[in-house]
């Protein structure tokens, strides 16, 4: 459950942001979870929600919503854009990528030219996309 650690990071960061924006109560936190992270969206939302009950009062009643960020890659060598499905990865490889999305570079190749030199354009990480509340 390394998701637990990420959920804790989300809450610490949400609290920081809410204070910066001088909110007195946070109503909703929208999270964006990259596909590469292969974290179940609903499971993660309820994990965050669960940890929120223990968080500071400002955050306790916030709704948590998760949107998925589709993964996209661009080959540096031939400039082709491709998806995770295009570059076939095994279950075991997916697990390594699940913990550290940059490991995609270890296991994936450009499906067009075979180069390992590609960039992750989208679809990594867990982000706070939006945070709304009352001043």
């Amino acid at each position, binding site marked *: *459950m*390394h998701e*637990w*650690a*990420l959920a*804790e*990071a*989300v809450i*610490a*960061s*949400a609290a*920081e*942001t809410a204070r910066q924006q001088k909110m007195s109560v946070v109503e909703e936190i929208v999270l*964006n979870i990259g596909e590469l992270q292969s974290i179940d969206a609903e499971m993660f939302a309820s994990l965050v929600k669960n940890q929120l009950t223990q968080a500071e009062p400002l955050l306790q009643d916030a709704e948590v919503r998760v949107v998925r960020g589709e993964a996209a890659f661009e080959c540096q060598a031939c400039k082709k854009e491709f998806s995770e499905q295009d570059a076939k990865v095994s279950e075991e490889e997916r697990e*390594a990528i699940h*913990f*550290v*999305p*940059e*490991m995609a*570079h*270890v*296991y994936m190749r450009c499906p067009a030219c075979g180069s*390992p*030199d590609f*960039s*992750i354009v989208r679809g*990594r*990480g*867990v*982000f*706070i*996309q939006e*945070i709304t509340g009352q001043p």
Partner: protein
Amino acid sequence: MIDPRSSVIEKRLAGVKRIVAVTGWKGGIGKSSIASVLALLLAHKGHRAALLDLDFTGASDHIILGINDAHYTEETGLNPPLAHGITFMSMSFFSQGRAVPLRGSDVSQAALELLAVTQWGEQDFLVVDMPPGIGDASLDMVRWIKRAELLAVTTPAVLSVETLKRSLALFERLNVPLLGIIENLSTAAHSPFVSHAKFLGSIQRDPSLEAATGHPEQILRTRFAEELGKVAAVFD
């Protein structure tokens, strides 16, 4: 979009008393050997010692220490395994012996991920084997690992003396404290760094180190470990 990961790093490292970042301005000068053997020596002296290999593209601490079958466990994050008395985390756990072709920004991203999810627990020392040089990746590390103290590794070459000065000046501007300078692979009786206020000592080229690679008990009996042990006295 806000990246939440850096917000939690301090909390992950809260149980660690001292963080020693082993840096050097190029590859092949003994950074990994010094970081690994330092962690080994500290653990041997009875300290709670941890080692984090952040040189992802050239991860080698697991080879130096012969950590082959240890694996992290998952709980409220990733718990690093204890190997030869050292709490150890490395990207080698995820790359399964394959090459890790990462550009600088990806090195930073991967490090951030690992720093956000690794649960170090209570440690007297965390030794960090840093990415080489003073590129983005190293600068990101010292930004995220706020309490890091630098242990700079260098060699006697003239070029090295100059780069060391420039790099140390940069870290000083970034307010990263310098614990000390170690000269490795030294040949001359008098090190060119001997006059530096933070000079800790030199380590000679030790031909027996190669054969001891992968065998911690044997490493502890090398001259390399003996000389590093003297330098490590600054931690007592």
